[in-house]
């Protein structure tokens, strides 16, 4: 039996939580994205809006093992952050380590910050 409850709206992909740091030469964004490889993440910047999106796949699934409970969200995620400054010309590097995805944006050398 699949009995339903009331549903409610939410943006279709799930949203990871994020920390935002100001650094001397730009910004660092840190996302709670364990199990996601850096090369599976897309960062796009439009003016002041930074969008980080990608897919988390469950790679632990193997023969003979089945779920007892699940709380981690899989499949597509997407997170928008509105920054205080235009970052379209920033240099961006992405790095995944220890369950965190770090996006560095350096504005060094840009006249307008």
């Amino acid at each position: 039996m699949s009995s339903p409850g009331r549903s409610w709206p939410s943006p279709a992909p799930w949203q990871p939580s994020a920390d935002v740091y100001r650094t001397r030469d730009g910004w660092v964004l840190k996302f709670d994205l364990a199990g996601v490889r850096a090369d599976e993440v897309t960062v796009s910047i439009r003016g002041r809006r930074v969008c980080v999106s990608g897919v988390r796949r469950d790679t632990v699934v193997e023969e003979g093992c089945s779920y007892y409970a699940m709380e981690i969200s899989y499949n597509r995620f997407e997170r928008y952050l509105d920054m205080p400054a235009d970052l379209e010309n920033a240099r961006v590097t992405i790095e995944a380590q220890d369950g965190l995805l770090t996006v560095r944006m350096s504005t060094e050398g840009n006249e307008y910050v």
Partner: protein
Amino acid sequence: MSEQPVVYELPVLPLKNAVLFPYLVMPLSAGRPASIAAVEAALASESKEVLVFTQRDGDVDVPTQDELYAIGTKAVIRKMSRSEEGHLELLVMGMERVAMVKLDHSEPFLKARVAPLPLPEDTSSELEALQGALIDLAGEALTLAQPNAPQELRGLLVANDDPLRLSFVLASMFSLDAVKSQSVLEAPSRAEALRLLHKYLTHEVQVLELRNKITSEARSEMNKEQREYMLRQQMRAIQQELGDKGGEQAEADQLRERLDKADLPEEILKEATRELNRLAKLPPGAPDYNVIRTYLDYVLELPWRKGTEDSLDIARARRVLDEDHFGLKDVKERILEHLGVLKLNPDAKAPILCFVGAPGVGKTSLGQSIARALNRKFERLSLGGLHDEAELRGHRRTYIGALPGRVLQAMRRAGANNPVLMLDEVDKLGHDFRGDPAAALLEILDPEQNKTFRDNYLDLPFDLSKVLFVTTANALDTIPAPLLDRMELLRLSGYSEEEKLQIAKRYLLPRQLKETGLTVERCSIPDATVRKIISGYTREAGVRQLERAIGRAARKIALRYAENQDLAACTIQPDDLIEMFGPEPFTQEQARRELPPGVSTGLAWTEAGGDVLYIEATLLPDGKGLTLTGQLGEVMQESAKAAQSYLWSHAGDFDIAPSLFKDAGVHVHVPAGAIPKDGPSAGVTMATALASLYSKLPARSDLAMTGEITLTGLVLPIGGVKEKVLAARRAGLQSVILPKGNQKDLRDLPEEVRNEMKFLFAERIEDVLRAAIPQLGDRMSRVKMRPAA
């Protein structure tokens, strides 16, 4: 490379009694073994995706493909935990809409191959309006359902600016049942989704209103009873103090006095006295007491013998009629005639008039004017949408809350037994299981029966024979024949531009100025401006839009005066209209310049007046027979067949190869928009279109035609000549072909139209073709001459 449809396969989670929408998160509980297996299979994948399909029948455990709706939603399982009973508690999130290709039963769980079914993305200006209306309605429903709904809920409505998302949120917010929800999910367009929701929420609001009403009624009932009890106790105390006899007794005495004074017919008085005696015996708390009281009140207030005195001064009546309405000669004469009859014989039977005409031509206001001219009371009841016989005739007194029908209520309001009683919109009368109001109407309008009209409530004969009944209708085709038979039809055809100008100048303008408190000196609207309003801002046979537009202009000027006391006199020039009303919504509908072979110009008579319509015919090589599309009634189809058969049988005369009829089919199209009310009058237009098609010769584009044809080629007269000619003139067409039999109707046309337009009268279809397709005319004369040569 052609794009492959992306078909994919996933486990299926069948839902009972609910629908999962894209964009929405929904908690679910999976308990069926197959469902549990499906969830486990989904969780064993990297992407955690399942397909959610709703079951057509909630009682089936393992549904077949036919038992599932074909359209569902692909979802991602976001969370899963196990309950104590071993169910899986899920949180799923709708991702995209999918259509089932094939359901697969080969595993312990259901699997399906599906193809994505992208959500519609139509846009239109209608969409915005629909969305606004839906948000308003949802707000209303929310207020009814949860008067103290949290603000966030309301916020959701406004925040969801995507129409589909809004529809989905509302469908789940109001827990619409699975069938309704599914129809929203399947909606082929955004507009349709919004429309569906609007329908469903309207129903929801009605249910909620009813529920609230019942609760509040139950509450007030109790309060009323308690109050009455208290008052009665107090009254009793006072009466004892004063040594008075019971208040009830006093009331009965009062009623008896009124009965004696009232001038009731004998039979009525007898019946009323009997009821009064019953009342006197009842304790005032008895349920019947109030019923009888109300009944007696009605009996006392009805105008049994009371009537107003007619003003029989014909000159005055003529003046009043002319004061209120421009033109309408026939109708006014008919009223004056009746006045003359009344003068000679005061007991003459009144005619039952039926005013037929497009909206806004003055039917209702003419009724009022007649009452004024005769110095009678005026009452109006609208029959539009009425489908309960009891509305006209009342409910028996044994029903709780019964009242007399609307006819007697109108008589009571009139306070006289000879009012002008207008039955508006007889053509919109409904009928269903609650009885046929037309039957009751027949009785009311029948001079033999209405002398003793029996209302169910009153159950006493009331004399309606002195009433002057006037009915109104936009069209006659929905009026039952026996009803039509009893009435004397008077047509109010539409007005020409010239007539509208006169009506505006002499009637509408002074009236609207007076209403806004302006004077002609302060605000003048010259003829040119009125003409521009008529041609650019209104499209109607009557003058209602015109009156409204003039009113709006007058109010704008009044506002200017209010803001600026020392404003000098003000004139509205044609160019000011753009600023007042915006750009012209209607540009004069222009006739097409040149017609290709196979197209001809017809005239239709519609509920809103007349219209020009183009009938288009094309050959279908290798096709067969006659295909008809567009706005075609059965009569139209017959006309088309008659036209084709006629041409076929005379192919030789027109120099058309008979093989064309055999070897090719024909498609005839009557464009939508102009919905002709009188099918047969398009006959000559069809014939012209077909003749032009077969002969490959174009028809004249400056000429329109109307008329019915017979198989032998006779052209028969049709209705609505004035409306049709005016429509042709509006479209800039100079010539009109009319059936010979309609020649007499030209006198209904305003003089300036008669002078300006060219009319050709046709007896036979050859006359029409010769005039409409000049080159064919040449050919025909050649053919005619051939034997002689």
